[in-house]
């Protein structure tokens, strides 16, 4: 729920910023098609945890996003004469990414509902499916359709049409929303919920790959727009939509989805589930560790520099300019410490993205550095205050300037005093860097989600990353302790 509010706020912000920084597309000439063709690439946003629409598969030892939606994207890109680039992020973030220009189009099994149509433009439908409910095979006899779940809980992907319809069209049934379908399947298998509502092709994929699952028809009363998928473009990109529609119409006419795309996706699913041991995915986990460490180390580094600057700025005294700088630094620290890191990450990626288009990894590092700097500044300020005044007097009496005194005498001692706090900050960042998974950076959490949707195994990847996180934090704290001891002279 909270996440939704945050997304809503970011969206509003993004739109307002958009208004402020560029003319609205309604009035401006529609250059959407020309822009994409000039770029030579068409960036597609998708949430790859929804087989067979889109999912991660290991192709020739490399993790890759595949599925029927990717095939649709390829077809559209080819029709425009440009290259396709696939960007993955959580389903919730997709439309924001489209509004803020992070992606050119969204293909993610998305239903063109009236509510969504208000914010984005859709192509014609490329696929018409239906809904099924996945249940545990052992309980298949108990359920027939959506009306069999009285007093029980069913699950659906948060923000999806199924979620809203399940709420509307069932009575006495609780609906539980989760961001990823793999989580829902896990909840089903651990009997937290009795069924999972999802689109028929997805249900088929899950049932085919997991012997403990079965599917039943949903019998939801649905309009065509609720059961079908279309490609979303930014509002007002009429030319681009028209061009994409040519490809979409071909797909429908030649029934390419059923004839080509779904069978091809099915093949990936099969090869995918041959080996679901966690060892088989060591590369995916390694990538996760790599990114987690890159983000942490970079953020600690820049956060530290920022922290030093902020703490010194907060100790300025004197004229109007110095007072103003001190005031700004104080305001910054208070503001950052008073807002959630998740909002900051989304703000940097989506909000700042309106002015400069930053890659997700860079945005993540910037956001976490900005955040960490505020906390480090407070530690350093405390550390500086903890150094005896006599040290400053001794240094000044030797003719050292206040700058040299700070740099050579006070800061080294302050840092030694706060080393344990800085170490804690580092370890906290190893864990907190997981927040950037929401903008699609392939750090450890993100990678584990991929492995989960890839293997249809819910718990094992979580256990693996838990151990991996522990190994990282434990090693880090040993190393930091070692340095702490070697700094001890008194």
């Amino acid at each position, binding site marked *: 729920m909270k996440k939704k509010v945050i997304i809503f706020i970011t969206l509003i912000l993004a739109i307002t910023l958009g208004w402020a920084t560029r003319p609205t597309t309604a009035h401006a000439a529609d250059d959407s098609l020309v822009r994409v063709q000039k770029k030579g690439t068409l960036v597609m946003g998708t949430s790859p945890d929804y087989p067979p629409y889109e999912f991660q598969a290991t192709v020739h030892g490399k993790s890759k996003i595949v599925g029927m939606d990717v095939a649709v994207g390829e077809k559209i890109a080819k029709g425009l004469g440009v290259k396709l680039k696939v960007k993955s992020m959580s389903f919730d973030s997709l439309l924001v990414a489209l509004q803020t220009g992070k992606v050119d189009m969204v293909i993610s099994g998305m239903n063109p509902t009236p509510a969504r149509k208000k914010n984005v433009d859709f192509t014609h439908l490329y696929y018409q499916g239906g809904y099924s409910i996945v249940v545990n095979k052992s309980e298949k006899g108990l359920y027939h359709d959506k009306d069999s779940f009285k007093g029980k809980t069913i699950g659906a992907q948060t923000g999806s049409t199924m979620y809203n319809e399940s709420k509307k069209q069932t009575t006495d049934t609780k609906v539980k929303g989760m961001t990823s379908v793999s989580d829902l399947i896990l909840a089903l298998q651990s009997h937290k919920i009795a069924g999972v509502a999802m689109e028929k092709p997805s249900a088929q994929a899950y049932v085919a790959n997991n012997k403990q699952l079965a599917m039943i028809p949903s019998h939801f009363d649905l309009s065509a727009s609720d059961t079908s998928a279309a490609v979303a473009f930014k509002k007002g990109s009429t030319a681009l939509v028209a061009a994409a529609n040519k490809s979409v119409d071909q797909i429908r006419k030649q029934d390419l989805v059923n004839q080509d795309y779904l069978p091809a996706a099915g093949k990936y699913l099969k090869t995918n589930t041959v080996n679901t041991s966690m060892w088989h995915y060591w590369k995916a986990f390694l990538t996760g560790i790599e990114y987690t460490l890159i983000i942490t180390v970079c953020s600690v580094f820049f956060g530290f520099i920022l922290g030093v600057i902020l703490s010194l700025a907060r100790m300025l005294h004197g004229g109007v300019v110095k007072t103003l700088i001190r005031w700004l630094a104080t305001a910054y620290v208070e503001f950052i410490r008073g807002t959630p890191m998740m909002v900051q990450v989304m703000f940097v990626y989506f909000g700042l993205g309106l002015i400069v288009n930053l890659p997700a990894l860079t945005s993540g590092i910037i956001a976490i550095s900005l955040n960490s700097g505020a906390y480090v500044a407070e530690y350093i300020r405390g550390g500086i205050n903890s150094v*005896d005044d*006599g*040290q400053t*007097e*001794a*240094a*000044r*009496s*030797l*003719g*050292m*300037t206040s700058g*040299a005194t700070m740099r*050579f*005498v006070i800061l*080294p*001692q302050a840092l*030694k005093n706060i080393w344990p706090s800085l170490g804690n900050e580092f370890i906290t960042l190893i864990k907190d860097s997981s927040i950037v998974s929401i903008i699609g950076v392939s750090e450890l959490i993100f990678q584990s989600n991929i492995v989960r949707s890839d293997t249809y195994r819910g718990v094992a990847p979580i256990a693996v990353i838990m151990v991996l996180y522990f190994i990282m934090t434990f090693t880090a704290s040993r190393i930091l302790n070692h340095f702490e001891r070697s*700094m001890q*002279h*008194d």
Partner: protein
Amino acid sequence: MTKPVIEVQNLAKDFGKNSVLKDITEQVDAGQVIVVIGPSGSGKSTFLRCLNLLETPTSGHVAFNGEDLTTLDTKRVNALREQMGMVFQGFNLFPNMSVLENIKLAPMKVKGISDAEATKQAHELLQQVNLDDHADAFPASLSGGQAQRVAIARALAMNPKVMLFDEPTSALDPEMVGEVLSVMQQLANQGMTMVVVTHEMGFAKSVADRIWFMADGYIQENSTPAEFFAHPQTERAKDFLSKILM
């Protein structure tokens, strides 16, 4: 007659409503050893700190070698401070640096001399205070007497024209007072100009050229040790001496 090294004119210092130094006019000539004595809280430390501008005077002037510190910019004040070494009651050694590094820091960072030269000089100074075998020790492992001698060597490393001592022995165990005083005596013998705040009356009698007795924000008496200890002029001084010599 050469110019005085330090000239203090109508110096006053207030901390808020607390007027600590009221009106002090004195001078220190080259090679002189001045011992400042007076009851605790009478402003001796504040006075000493005003001499090298660690404390900014509320009014009045402090001149060093003829240059009025109170009218100079920070850069020039820093430059003049180099020439006034200061030794504190609490040593104030840098705990994160070895003895050698403590001594080398300012010459290298302020004067910009080379590491090799600074090291050589530091060893010479350590020999002078009898501590060369402790060059690599850290301050925490030193006794109080050793730490204070290192602090003196550190101040001397800047080649000061004047040395200011603020109760250098009052934080020491009695058996260590002697080793510090003898280093100071040696300095005085070499002709160093010194202003020493101390309660060591033996040192004052044998080493001082002048005694300044401070009380109630004024230098109440300025005389030779012989005069001062034999014939104190003011009631304040008589009272002080009777208490301290008891």
